Structure formats: structure tokens, C-alpha cells
């Protein structure tokens, strides 16, 4: 069943202890950052993960990278449970899953030469040493659009976009198959964003990497993704191929997100359709469907039962009671 799937996450859950612990050290409350998240990424595909800040998208990335251990759930790399691995096998596996973080500056050690910052993964993994490292760093830098003499400089001598190129080079030098991009462009100027996004897409075309691309920016997600997953308060509410999602969003939350994007059209001077209220705290998640206090189409059932995901089209899954039982409810589709 997992033919062509690189990464599969099943029922991932991560709770962080929140607030003061009780008198006897028992935790009173938990921040439910990731609360039952499942998805998969196919070979050579980009899955965009979109949601507001604090919805748990970055935590999902951390769980895949092994920077946090999930409280429940599994992560499968080509069918193999990577959380069960230990020691050398774990290190070898981790090489296949790399990351590029949001802030290009703090992702680079200010006191480390670019050559070492890009080449050290080869050395610590015993993949190359000495002159071979230099050669491969040079080749990798060329691939991300940097020159060989950049090897002997320090991060502060580069612009934000160049620094992010260095980070991409570091992530890719060990030849991973799957890369998590955690908002890689949100700290960059708009003009530079496009360059980095195109670089990321080019590299995928040439090398066939698979990506999980985390962002809160719908236009960025639309630009890079093949499929998109929408996250709200620690859950994925809708997953669909990119075109499908942007043309016919099904979940009321997805629709609200789309409506909130400002359109560059002076003729349509209508106020943005905004959701009422704020995102509830992930410590006190509403019962039933977690979106119901803000949902414009809320029904009685939403306040009591959590909606299970249903398939409403090819590869298009929605977790919403509006689509339950009806299969494909054309009447509810908004124009």
C-alpha cells in the first residue's frame, strides 16, 4: 500500500506540559500542540502544511526530524518505523531526513566558516574527509548558486537569501530523500523569497527530493506544493491536491483562510471576510469539532462529536460534519 510513499505519519500526538505543575509534581494542564495528525508524502512530491501561527505545524516538523519524541503515533520512512531505531541504524536513517529552518541567520553558527557549516555533516557521518569534503562542499555550493570562494567566509558576510542557500546546502549535502522546510522564506524579503522558492523547486526537479513545506503563507504554499494539508489547532482539517484545494476548498476553515488573502484588485474594495473570535488556546481545546466556536456553518453535532475525515473527491479528505453521510453535497458548495 505504501508504494512510492517516502514519509508516512500516523496518529502523531505531542502534548507539552503547560503552566505550573501541581503540588505533587503532577501536571495540571497540557498544551496539545499536535493532536492526532496523519499524512503521507510521496516520492518527489511537495506536501504543503499550512495553518495559523501556533497551530502546531512546526511541531509536526520537529516530530519527523526526531527533535521531539511524539507521545503517540508512528513515523514511517519507506515503511520503516524510524522511532523504533536505535544507535547506528538511527543515525543512518536520520541522514535521509533533513531540515531548513525559518531564520537563516540563527540557523548558522556565527563562528563557523561556511565550508565547515556545509561540510560537517559529511565528516560527522563518516561519508568523506579532507580534500573530498572540500570538493563536495564546492559542488554543493554551486548547486545552490554560491561561488567556491564563499567557502572561506563567515555567515555574517552574506545576505539573508545567501544564508538560506547555505542552509539548504547543509541540508542537502548528505543526499537526503526527504527535507522539511519550516517556513524557509518568512524571514526574507519578498524579492528574495521567490528566488529561494524557485531554487527549492529546481532542486526537487533535478534530484527528486520529497518535501514537507511548512508555511502560514498561502501564496507560498500554492507556489511550491503538489498537495496541501490545512492544520487547525493541532489537527489536519483538510488535505487535497493543490488545484483542487484552491478552487474548491471544502472545510469552512480552509474557505476562511482563502477569503482572508488580500486580492490585488482595486475594483473589489470589499472588506476581508474574517472569522469571528480568536484561535482558542491549545491548552483548552473546544469539545467536538475544535473549529465550531468560530465556524460560520456550525451545526448541533459539531459541538459534541469530533468529525472523522471523509474522502470527498480524489485524494481530497475533509474532517467536517458538513460532508458526512452526504458524500458529495453540491448544495453546500459556495460559489
Amino acid at each position, binding site marked *: 500500500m505504501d508504494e512510492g510513499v517516502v514519509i508516512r505519519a500516523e496518529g502523531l500526538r505531542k502534548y507539552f506540559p503547560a503552566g505550573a505543575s501541581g503540588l505533587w509534581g503532577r501536571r495540571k494542564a497540557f498544551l496539545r500542540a499536535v493532536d492526532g495528525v496523519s499524512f503521507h508524502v510521496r516520492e518527489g512530491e511537495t506536501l504543503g502544511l499550512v495553518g495559523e501561527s501556533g497551530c502546531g505545524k512546526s511541531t509536526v516538523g520537529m516530530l519527523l*526530524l*526526531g*527533535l521531539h519524541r511524539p507521545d503517540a503515533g508512528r513515523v514511517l520512512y519507506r515503511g520503516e518505523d524510524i522511532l523504533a531505531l536505535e544507535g547506528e541504524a538511527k*543515525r543512518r536513517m*536520520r*541522514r535521509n*531526513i*533533513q*531540515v531548513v*529552518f*525559518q*531564520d537563516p541567520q*540563527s*540557523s*548558522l*553558527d*556565527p*563562528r*563557523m*566558516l561556511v565550508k*565547515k557549516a556545509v561540510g*560537517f*555533516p559529511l565528516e*560527522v*557521518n563518516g561519508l568523506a574527509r579532507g*580534500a573530498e569534503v*572540500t*570538493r563536495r562542499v564546492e559542488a554543493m555550493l554551486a548547486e545552490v548558486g554560491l561561488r*567556491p570562494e564563499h567557502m*572561506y*567566509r*563567515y555567515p*555574517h*558576510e552574506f545576505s539573508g537569501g545567501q544564508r538560506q542557500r547555505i*542552509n539548504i546546502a*547543509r*541540508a542537502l549535502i*548528505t543526499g537526503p530523500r526527504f527535507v522539511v522546510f519550516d517556513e524557509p522564506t518568512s524571514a526574507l524579503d519578498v524579492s528574495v523569497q521567490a528566488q529561494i522558492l524557485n531554487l527549492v523547486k529546481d532542486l526537487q526537479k533535478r534530484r527528486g527530493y520529497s518535501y514537507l513545506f511548512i508555511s502560514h503563507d498561502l501564496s507560498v504554499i500554492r507556489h511550491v506544493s503538489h498537495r496541501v494539508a490545512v492544520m487547525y489547532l493541532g489537527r489536519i482539517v483538510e488535505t487535497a491536491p493543490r488545484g483542487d484545494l484552491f478552487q474548491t476548498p471544502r472545510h469552512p476553515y480552509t474557505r476562511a483562510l482563502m477569503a482572508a488573502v488580500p486580492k490585488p484588485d482595486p475594483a473589489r474594495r470589499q472588506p476581508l471576510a474574517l472569522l469571528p473570535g480568536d484561535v482558542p488556546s491549545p491548552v483548552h481545546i473546544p469539545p467536538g469539532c475544535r473549529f465550531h466556536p468560530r465556524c460560520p456553518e456550525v451545526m448541533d453535532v459539531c459541538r459534541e462529536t469530533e468529525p472523522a475525515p471523509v474522502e470527498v473527491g480524489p485524494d481530497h479528505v475533509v474532517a467536517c460534519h458538513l460532508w458526512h453521510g452526504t458524500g458529495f453535497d453540491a448544495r453546500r458548495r459556495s460559489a
Partner: protein
Amino acid sequence: MPSSTPRSGTDPTGGWRRFREEHAWQIREFFFTLHLLRRNPSAVAGFVIICSMVFLALAAPWVAPYDPIRISLSERLSPPSWHHLFGTDELGRDLFSRVLYGARISLRIGLLVVGIAGGLGTILGAVAGYVGGKTDDVIMRCLDIVLSFPSLVLAMALAAALGPSLRNAILAVAFVMIPKFARLVRGEALAVRERPFIAAAKVSGASHTWIVFHHVIPNCLSSVIVLGTLVVGETILIASSLSFIGLGAQPPTPEWGAMISVGRKFLMDQWWYATFPGLFILVTVIGFNIFGDALRDVLDPRIRR
């Protein structure tokens, strides 16, 4: 485009050029720091004092008019004169020569102690701060015990337990100084640990040891250097105190503290005996302290320039 950069070693000038290329940023930073230091009067004063002391220590065999341990009973306790700039002691040894040779010993103590305590303290602090949790608690509580004693008293106790000798005095003072470095580095390591490049290094497969030595410690080094300068002064003071009470350098070694110790018996009638070694301790310690203070101001990126 060159397909490969020249290897260092095959051609010495090429190696040097490559070094300059690779370290261009550090070289520029170094000269900028020098420039800032030159504009800072106390840094200049401290630097001049330290350099003169180092010069006197190195040049002692040529500058000193007499052998520091040559006894000449006919000249005992003679006051300062052109023959004996600082006078002589109760065995007729030339105090000027002894003070110059004393600079060698004091500076060596200072450097050795800072080397040992700085090295161990940095590693302990970096491990404590980076690993955190139980390891942090165990390391830091042990060091707190050391810190809870006045450094001089503990150094005295240790030196006495190890037996009086210069080597044991150095070990004792170094042990006492470890927590100063460890606490400083731990604080910085706690901050470094949270930076994203540490997470990136973990994902890239770097071991914790690798991260401590290649990320954590290099990012703490500039504050360690500043503290090191300040500790040199304190160390010279403590080591002299140990020698003063007979726990450090043993006769006839010309150590400043030991000289004061004997000289104090003659303070009423032969003021020069204890005064000149004392002045040298004072000036050296002040030199290291004001230079260290200025260095801290200059290296701190927030108040730099």
C-alpha cells in the same frame, strides 16, 4: 575556475596565503579590536604594564645585574644604591635581580592556572549548560561547594594538604578557579543550546560531544578570554599569599610573596626589602585587571565601538 585549492604544506607561501584567505574575517576583527583597544586609555595602560612585565620576565637573565640566588654576606641588608637598585636582603642577594626573576615565576603561575582552570572550567561549564538536567545539577552543585569557600582559604587548605611546593600551589589555585570559568560558560551554553544551528547540527547527525566542542565552546570563547585576563591578576595575588605563608614557592626561589614574607621581619629598619616585591605584585595585578576590564568592554558586541 580552479578545480582545487592549493594544499597547505606543499608550498609555505601558499599555505600562508590560504590561511589569510580562510581567516580573513578573524584577521579583520582582530585589527578592529586592536583599534578599539588603542582608543581606550585603561586598555593601553594595562597592556603596557603587562608587556613590560612579560618583557622583564623574559629578559631577566640579561637585564638582571646579579644572579638572584648568589649570596654575598658582606653586603647584607644594604639600602638601595646604584650597585643594588632595590637594595639587598638578609643574605646579601640583589633584590632587583630577585624581583625580575620573580616576574617569571608569577607570570608562569598566572598562565598555568588560567590554562588549567580555564580549560577544565570551560569544558565542565559547556557540558553542564548544554546537557542540562541531572548532569547540570551534579556538576554545578559540586562546583558550588568549591565556590562556597573563600578562594584564598580553600587554596590554602588544599596547598597545605598537598604539601608545600610551587607545583602544588599552582594545582590548588587552579582548582579554586575552575568554578569561575564553569559558571560563566554554563550561562552562555544555556543560551547557545537553544539556537537553531544546534538543532540543525543534531538533525545532520552530529554527536553531542561534537556539538559541545564545535558549536558551544567556540561561542563562549571571547568571554572566557576576558575572564582569563582578570583571573591572572587574582591568581598572582593568591599564589603570592600562599608563598607568603610558606605554602608556595620554597627558598631560595625568588617569588614575590615569599620575599615579602621574609621581608616583613625587616620592615621597620629595611623598608626596601618587602616594598619592592609588593609594588611589583600591585602593579602587575592592576595591569591585568584594567586590561581585562577594557577587553570586556571592547569585545562585548552590545557596547562595541
